[in-house]
């Protein structure tokens, strides 16, 4: 079996470049196509929704400000048609991550939106459904493998894997779409190795969604430059002072490439589609708290204390104990738990500044206590092999004013492959997203009907043109 062979320790670059070149343009199996289609549908929804967000509006303003040439027609995502593809990719990726509502692959960040953004950035070359699926699945795989190869220390150090490693996923995807030969793929990966930035310090600001856009833009830039003959290092990932050495903090894991081509991350484990528009690291606490409150059977006003025990590392990205802005609230465990207890659910409406400022929710937040507890991840107490959102379990105890208490424990994330969102939930989310992005939600079924038959589409830009803003809704008006 291929996966049983000894890994070539020095050959991460060799293996990935050969893998991308060899698989480019190959059609994908039905199960992978189905998984990728679900992720792409979800991504289109959140990109559309992003136009209604503060970071999304800023990205659209930027796109219009720098677009060369005469005022041009708009594209489906709301930006001008004449924008250079790398900049378009940056803006689309920012829109898609703006609400923190896009899907995730725990440990690898949020690859789907940035892959789609990179692949659909260049409107001048029509992209068919099968070509999109093939390149998407390949980019997803490279993204997932490299996230493992760089290891979780990368994230613990303070980098945002979505941005840094996502750049390689996007590069691989665009290389595959363009059918670049192996030497050009290798050069593109080398160029991308000099493009990757992204710090978690910027979580809770508009620069976090920008990270997704930057990864997408980096992919387009690196692949385009390599296609044009720009040269780069032969072995960007390997050896001392290579990319993996530097960005893994000295602990690269080349064995992460074992079984490359045998197992595919798009189905094993497959993406986690987000149920709530906030950081994945909050999900298990939100669900456990809601369950515990339900067991107590009292309204949120009767809560006296909420105690959350979470695995070590969970709180790394959750930087805001007392959030004020939408972006901060998405990275606040106290806020998300309090809002869920008060409202029974978390929706896009939970993250308006008005919702965040409600006295009732502020009072409840003050009652939420969090501690990271190694006992919550007995199989990996230090979190070396885990992501911040998965592994182990979260346990929440809610105490009521009348002195009773109830606890609930959640291990698997809602929306993860073992607990997937059902189709009505996906459809509902898509419809909400169109509304949030200032589009007619009545378009949802027509779009979903086309997108579910993605493998038969011959031009994605045309397919998605239903989303092109033609009437200037308030979101778009403000963006101008």
């Amino acid at each position, binding site marked *: 079996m291929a996966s049983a062979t000894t890994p070539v320790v020095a050959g991460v670059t060799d293996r990935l470049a050969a893998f991308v070149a060899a698989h480019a343009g190959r059609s994908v199996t039905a199960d992978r196509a189905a998984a990728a289609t679900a992720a792409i549908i979800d991504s289109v929804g959140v990109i559309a929704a992003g136009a209604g967000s503060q970071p999304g509006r800023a990205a659209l303003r930027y796109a219009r400000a720098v677009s060369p040439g005469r005022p041009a027609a708009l594209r489906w995502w709301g930006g001008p048609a004449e924008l250079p593809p790398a900049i378009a990719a940056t803006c689309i990726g920012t829109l898609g991550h703006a609400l923190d509502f896009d899907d995730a692959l725990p440990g690898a960040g949020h690859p789907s939106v940035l892959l789609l953004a990179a692949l659909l950035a260049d409107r001048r070359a029509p992209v068919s459904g099968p070509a999109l699926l093939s390149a998407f699945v390949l980019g997803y795989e490279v993204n997932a493998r490299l996230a493992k190869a760089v290891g979780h220390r990368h994230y613990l150090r303070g980098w945002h894997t979505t941005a840094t490693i996502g750049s390689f996923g996007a590069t691989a995807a665009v290389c595959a779409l363009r059918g670049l030969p192996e030497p050009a793929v290798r050069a593109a990966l080398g160029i991308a190795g000099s493009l990757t930035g992204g710090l978690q310090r910027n979580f809770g600001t508009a620069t976090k969604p920008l990270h997704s856009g930057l990864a997408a833009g980096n992919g387009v830039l690196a692949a385009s430059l390599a296609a044009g003959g720009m040269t780069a290092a032969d072995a960007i990932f390997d050896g001392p002072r290579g990319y993996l050495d*530097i960005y893994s903090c000295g602990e690269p894991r080349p064995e992460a490439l074992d079984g490359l081509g045998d197992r595919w991350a798009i189905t094993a484990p497959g993406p986690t589609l987000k149920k709530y528009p906030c950081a994945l690291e909050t999900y298990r606490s939100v669900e456990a708290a809601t369950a515990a409150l339900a067991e107590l059977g009292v309204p949120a006003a009767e809560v006296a204390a909420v105690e959350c025990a979470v695995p070590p590392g969970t709180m790394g990205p959750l930087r805001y104990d007392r959030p004020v802005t939408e972006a901060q609230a998405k990275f606040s465990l106290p806020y998300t738990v309090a809002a869920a207890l008060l409202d029974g659910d978390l929706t896009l409406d939970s993250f308006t500044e008005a919702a965040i400022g409600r006295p009732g929710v502020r009072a409840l937040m003050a009652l939420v206590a969090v501690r990271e507890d190694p006992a919550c991840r007995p199989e990996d107490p230090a979190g070396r092999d885990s992501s911040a959102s998965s592994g182990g379990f979260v346990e929440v105890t809610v105490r009521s004013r009348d002195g009773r208490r109830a606890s609930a424990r959640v291990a698997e994330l809602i929306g993860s492959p073992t607990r997937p969102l059902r189709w009505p939930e996906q459809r509902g989310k898509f419809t909400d997203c169109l509304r949030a992005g200032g589009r007619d939600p009545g378009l949802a079924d027509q779009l979903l009907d086309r997108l579910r038959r993605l493998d038969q589409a011959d031009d994605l830009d045309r397919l998605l043109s239903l989303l092109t803003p033609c009437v200037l809704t308030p979101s778009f008006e403000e963006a101008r």
Partner: protein
Amino acid sequence: MTDALTGRLADFIAQTTRHDFPDGLAAAAVRLVIDTVGVVLAGRSGGAGERILRYAEQACGDPGGPTSWLGIPAAAPPELAALVSSTLGHALDFDDELAGTGHPASILTSAILALPVRPLTGQRLIEAFVIGYEVNVRVAQLVGHRHYRKGWHTTSTIGGFGAVAAAAKLLDLDAAQIRTAFGIVGSLASGIQRNFGSMTKPLHSGLAARNGVLAAQLALTGFTAAPDILDGPRGFVDIYADGGDHPDALDDLGASWALLVPGATLKKYPCCYATHRPIDAVLRLRAEHNLTPADVVAVIDRAPTFGLTPLIHHEPKTGLQGKFSLEYVVAAALLDGQITLGSFTDAAVNRPEIRALMPLLDAKEDPRCRPEDPTAADSSAGTGGFHEVTIVTTDGRRLTTTVEYPSGSPKHPLSWEESRAKFRDCILAAGRDEVRGMALFEQLRSLPELTDVHATLERAVA
């Protein structure tokens, strides 16, 4: 104060104006800007320059309208113009250098000229340049030298902070906006030395300029970011200093200016700075002793600790690799008696007579050659200590010389005549009209009086 570093730099940028500059500072900037315009123009003759221009052409389509001095559509997005301009500026490895900071001048000049501020007076250009330069140097000092030793390319990673400072000054951002722009640029910083010797190294310079322009414009467009990107645990300095940070680097901010002390180096040779001292030594011995390659049986270079680290190409195949090959430049200096832009074509590197000379080099780092810092804990590859070069001749002589400071460094600055010769070399490499090109050189000497720098540049290359 958790935000002391970011806040101090933001206040410095917002509050400092050209009226605060001591004597000589503006003049030092003018020397650098002129040198940079030359190397940016020459950049199109290099592989990376040709590729980045082609990329820009494809990325922009054909928007119509005039072209800029770079040869791309004037309507190109500013971030793209900056990317192109500074990739051109570093394409030949001929731009300026400052030990520990890298190559800031092309990044700064490119960012400033890419922004849609017109007409741009020479005074405003100089003001933004000087402030950007100072910030670039200070942030490089904050992260310290371990940053480079870890494998990052300071020109690229830290250059974005210089570029964003220059852009912020030019766009007149307030301190809060500058903090935001810094936060964004902290998430853009990238560039690793593994790409040295490839066209991606010049791209690093372009990326730094692009990052500064992009971050400043995004901050103006309404993007938010961390206001304290440099400070505290898991901030930029913590992550990128690799444990070697120098928080005292801002202590005399505004009182001491890096453009004056230690001052920039204008490169005499279009190759890695770490090769300049051995090149000076070989050319000196060759001239003093009238040597020809046939007289030489060995060239022994004893280099300061870390002084050979960037010189990773021992058998270069391309002109670009040749810039990072001590074997090659020593052979070319012996054979040709000079190192010019013409030394770094693929054909020049692959000459059989060159290949025959390359094995004569015996280069080793020796802590004795860096007595003040034997482990190079705080030193960069091209400066500090000395190179001791010995040429052994066929008749058994051992001719030795040492070089502490290379030509073009503040200790041995280029004369105006040498600068003019370099500018001419650049104009000719660019395929530009020599008369108009050299007229530009003279006009730029009066940069503080220019009222529309873009127009001056466009006239010269039209």
